[in-house]
């Protein structure tokens, strides 16, 4: 574990991604406690204040400090997206591994069905799910989790198929090991690494999707300070206060970049071969 961490920090992507991750985690954990102002505190005198000493990222149409809202918004934006991705990834990974292990007709049927479900764009699937279940952060997270399952299943399946071709799996079969032993003890440790990497990169995608849903009014609901929601609310005041849009946009981008970097860094760190 520590060995992996050390290797992660050795790559520039891993190091940068980890730094960003720490910043984001701090924002989520501390949230409002770290904010200079109360996020809800309105100040009609200071409406549309430009970024400056008083308000580092400016103030919005109700005079609320943008930075404070951003910090609190981290808690609305990130944890749910992460949870949604990893739960979807876990389910997808099980389906993918099972399909690869079963092979033959079952594998084809499962794969074709996954491909068919993937013919519906992720956003559309999430939109339909949310419109069915009702608006709200939890439903949006659930919808994202479902939309992550098919692509993770595909990735896991192709990794599992490659692992299954390896001779150490054949050696296990030749030893007469049971199916569950082969899948859990021989295949899974080798399948886990690429799947974790893929899942990490998907978190970036989930954060963006979650923000999009909130932007469209179907995810987090006001007065939450979810970042996508902030962009949507600020659209009306584009002319007067563009910074109210720019700040949460940058936050979303930074989060997505963070997880993309982590994924790239993990790719090197989790590879068991020695560096040459």
């Amino acid at each position, binding site marked *: 574990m520590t060995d992996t961490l050390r290797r992660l920090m050795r790559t520039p992507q891993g190091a940068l991604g980890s730094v960003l991750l720490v910043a984001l985690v701090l924002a989520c954990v501390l949230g409002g406690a770290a904010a200079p102002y109360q996020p809800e505190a309105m100040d009609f005198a200071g409406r549309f204040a430009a970024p400056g000493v008083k308000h580092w990222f400016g103030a919005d149409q109700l005079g609320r400090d943008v930075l404070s809202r951003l910090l609190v918004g981290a808690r609305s934006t990130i944890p749910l997206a992460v949870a949604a991705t990893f739960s979807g990834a876990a389910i997808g990974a099980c389906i993918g591994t099972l399909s690869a292990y079963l092979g*033959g007709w079952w594998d084809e049927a499962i794969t074709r069905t996954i491909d068919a479900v993937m013919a519906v764009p992720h956003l559309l699937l999430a939109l339909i799910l949310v419109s069915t279940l009702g608006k709200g952060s939890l439903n949006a997270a659930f919808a994202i989790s479902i939309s992550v399952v098919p692509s993770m299943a595909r990735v896991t399946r192709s990794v599992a198929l490659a692992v299954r071709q*390896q*001779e*150490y799996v*054949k*050696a296990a*079969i*030749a*030893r*007469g*090991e049971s199916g569950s032993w082969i899948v859990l003890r*021989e295949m899974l*440790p*080798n399948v886990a690494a690429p799947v974790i990497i893929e899942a990490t990169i998907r978190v970036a995608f989930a954060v963006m999707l979650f923000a999009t849903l909130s932007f469209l009014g179907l995810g987090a609901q006001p007065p939450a300070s979810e970042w996508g929601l902030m962009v949507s609310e600020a659209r009306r005041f584009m002319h007067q206060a563009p910074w109210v849009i720019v700040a949460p946009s940058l936050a979303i981008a930074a989060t997505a970049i963070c997880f993309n970097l982590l994924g790239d860094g993990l790719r090197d760190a989790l590879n*068991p*071969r*020695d*560096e*040459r």
Partner: protein
Amino acid sequence: MSPALEIRDYALDYVTQGGTQRVLQAIDLAIASGEVVGLVGESGSGKTSLAWAIMRYLPANAREAPAGRIRLGDTDLRAASAKALETIRGRRMSMVFQDPSTALNPTLTIGRQVTEVLVRHRGLSEREAWREAIQALEHVDLRQPEALMRRYPHQASGGEKQRIGIATAFACRPELIIFDEPTTALDVITGARILELFRRLREETGVAALYISHDLALVSRVADRVAILEKGAIVEEAPSATIFRHPLHDYTRRLVAAVPRPERRLVSDQVADDALLSATNIAVRYQRKRLFRPAPRPATANIAIDVRRGEILGIVGESGSGKSSIARALTGLADYTGRIALAGRRIDSADDMDRGYRRAVQIVFQHPDSSLNPRQTVADILARPLRLYGGDVSTIPALLEEVRLPAAYAKRYPHQLSGGEKQRVAIARAFAARPDLIICDEITAPLDVSVQASVVELLLRLRAANGTAYLFITHDLNLVQQVAHRIAVMRNGEIVDLLGIEDLRSGNMHPYTRELIAASPAPVG
């Protein structure tokens, strides 16, 4: 007259994350016009790096020592500009590569890839080049060259592709051709024919050649002089006629000693006619019959094979002959029809193979890199069969010692071991079960010849101690003649010949067997 190629005091380093690695040092080599010089070295000796250095195609992290010189005829290659090199490569010096399948562009026709050299260097028009190319392909004994020119590489066999590569290399009548292990990726018989072609062309054209290989026996048959490369330095250089008979340097002696020689038997005992495992009517089928397609051909026809207790049964054949399929059928890795009997007990399908069978019949695979789980330590890998078959986990150090590995290796991961060491762990894993029969599926093929010799010695020692039988699958006829009691010869999924050692000596064999043996003659000396 200046030599075709002259290398003086050349040294090369690679800069890596782990530090600077010296790959070649103080290389002095000269090839006279019309001469063939062989360069022999094991993996890591730097022989391929020397080829890249001559062709001036080194990777970005290569650092050449300033003093060394490489001259092609009168031209100083190191001083040549990139543009000058473009006119030299392909015209004055060319190269034949190791793997003909990857050396050809899959999206261009074969004809295109031959004519482009002619158009580029001899200034021919497309039409003239096409005609010349057809002639060149005819000259290397390719049938129906016009049709072949229009096809794509994947539609040609390995032997055909290598002939195309040779034709391309000879096309502009270069002064020097570098051959990088041209027969390693080919079957034994195909490779032998390529060597004949090489000899003929060399006589006709008088081109100078550098023939690189790991196979000392092969090189001493094709080259005039041989240079031995060990860890980046040339340790000995001698005419090929004498290097085998009178090796001077220590390393050369070790190499010569490691080369398998059929007349030197390593196994001298007799084996009783006590059948341990017998298989009859075995047909191995890999694909299920799918809709709208004809049933696929079985990998093996109805084969009958038996292994006697304690014997070494060799199985030889070219790729696609079905020898690995038998190994898979006997270990339940492939579907088969037919009957297997182990010490009298009947096994009708893979489901019948219970723990007793599994313990008695073990297998060691070809690729050491993929036969050990990269996420398990050596101890984990060896503990599993011990636990399964009632051994004692505390015997792991003893197991490692049996295969001549230090006990401390138990904590290591596979990527921390060399190829030979990984293969030893795989052998230890097989022996942990104390089996009656071990199937060795081409286990020495990817290893250097000296490592191969030590692995074979290990196998024989373990057999002497445990009385295990081996089903030894290989394509190396010289090796199998050294160790096997009986040899089965396979072709196209059938066993065409089954010989005992006396048959080999008396010459009583199938014509195909004779052809195989002729294709890999015993080394002279």
